[in-house]
């Protein structure tokens, strides 16, 4: 690694290699390249396996904290811990398996630059989506996770000119099944799957309804209420319909236009379909 800069006055000076970069290595059998020791490779593999298990254990621990202790862990925490462990693993792979540790630094700089670009790509959407909560209160009263879930029916659009816009894709799939099986059988299967899932992963039914914790008794309510009425009640209770369309009780969304109140009163009124919404105008 350490070498003295060649002197042009030296009789051994190689004019084809003025900086002496290749003087020491030329002619050697392995070109002087670093050969990883097998012991090191095995150790790195062991470390990688350990960190893989660690990330699964941490996730299981998080699940335990959320479902058994009832302490919420944010999505951001989940992602940051998992990505931290993954970054350690990525470092091990690149430094030792991919030989960056003993390679020309240029290859490392290329990778670092690429990761910096990736970080930039992630930062701008994160700034946008992460800060919508700051402006939402000025648009509407309740911040929302966003999106109407309304999909475009490509088949209809390409067909005989029927409406290209259909309902929510997920709702359609469920409604098709309800029509085929009848509501009673359908909802029974629906909750049976939940119970199986809960039994399989060892946590409560609220796993799939973490955001509706106060409605976790829906299963018993459904049994009390009977079939069709209960099914309708549950569909409403579980928020399946709430998410689907506009009739969501004034919940705003990044994808929808809402009334903006500003200096010029009523400027945007004619462009919105929320003008009769109770939340829309703050100072009617």
């Amino acid at each position, binding site marked *: 690694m350490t070498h003295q800069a060649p002197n042009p006055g030296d009789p051994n000076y190689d004019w084809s290699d003025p900086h002496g970069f290749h003087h020491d290595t030329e002619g050697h*059998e392995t*070109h002087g*390249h670093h050969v990883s020791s097998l012991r090191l*490779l095995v150790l790195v593999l062991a470390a*990688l396996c350990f960190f*893989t298990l660690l990330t*699964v254990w941490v996730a299981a621990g998080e699940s335990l904290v959320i479902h058994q202790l009832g302490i919420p862990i944010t999505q951001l925490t989940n992602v940051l811990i998992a990505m931290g462990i993954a970054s350690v693993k990525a470092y091990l792979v690149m430094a030792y398996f991919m030989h960056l540790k003993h390679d020309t630094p240029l290859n490392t700089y*290329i990778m670092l630059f690429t990761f910096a670009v990736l970080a930039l*790509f992630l930062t701008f959407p994160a700034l946008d989506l992460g800060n919508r909560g700051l402006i939402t209160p000025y648009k509407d009263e309740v911040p929302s996770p966003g999106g109407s879930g309304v999909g475009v029916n490509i088949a209809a659009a390409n067909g005989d000119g029927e409406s290209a816009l259909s309902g929510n894709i997920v709702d359609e799939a469920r409604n098709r099944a309800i029509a085929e099986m009848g509501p009673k059988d359908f909802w029974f299967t629906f909750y049976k799957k939940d119970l199986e899932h809960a039994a399989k992963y060892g946590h409560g039914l609220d796993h*799939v309804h973490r955001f509706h914790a106060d409605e976790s008794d829906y299963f018993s309510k459904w049994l009390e209420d009977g079939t069709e009425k209960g099914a309708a009640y549950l569909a409403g209770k579980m928020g399946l319909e709430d998410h689907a369309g506009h009739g969501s009780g004034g919940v705003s969304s990044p994808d929808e236009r809402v009334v903006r109140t500003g200096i010029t009163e009523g400027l945007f009124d004619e462009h919105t379909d929320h003008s009769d919404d109770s939340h829309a105008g703050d100072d009617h």
Partner: protein
Amino acid sequence: MTTIDPQAEPALAKPKGMRWESYVHGHHWRNADDEFDAAKLGMWLFLSTEVLLFAGVFVSYAIMRMKYPEAFINGSGYLDVKWGLTNTFVLLASSFTVAWAVRAAQLNQRKVLIANLIFTLLCAVAFFGIKLIFEYIPKWSEGKRPGEWFSYPYAHDPHEHIWWGIYYIATGIHALHVLIGAGLLTWVLVRSGMGKYGPKNYAMVETSGLYWHLVDLVWIFLFPLLYLIH
């Protein structure tokens, strides 16, 4: 192309079936080290574009998860950590054997080189088999499909088709890379059998290995992002 010395060309042409002992670096390189380093630099530049390809996947994942967190929690709940974990170990083991294969080529251990490459290819088959038999086929047939093809009636969130879109694109592009990497390593295996790789010539083993490590690297990030959400 301008040929400076046409008489020199036939002498430098490499004979077919040449073994590594008689390998001579290209005559436009100052020495074998320059050639090797340039090959590796080119591979790293290519790998950086591969990272940028997957950057699109990761950014779309991030945007969709920020917008529809519940769909991602529910969607991840349908995946079986057991198979994701198995496939992670499979890829880590194959990454290790590829690194070992490079070492074997450097030390002229041909049998070790070939054994490691065969093990790596078996890992690739195992990964793809697990993915297809335990993940793709059952999920697709249940209706857990991306976007417009979604038809799973027991979904809990109205945006689960978006989760499946991200899932199939991310794992699909990754699986494509597994196939390409396996193809490259098969080529290296065949040529190893012909004795083409040894201490004086192992750039192809090294660069194919780098590609395979990238496949492993991407999976290291995909596994927790897809399987370990709550």
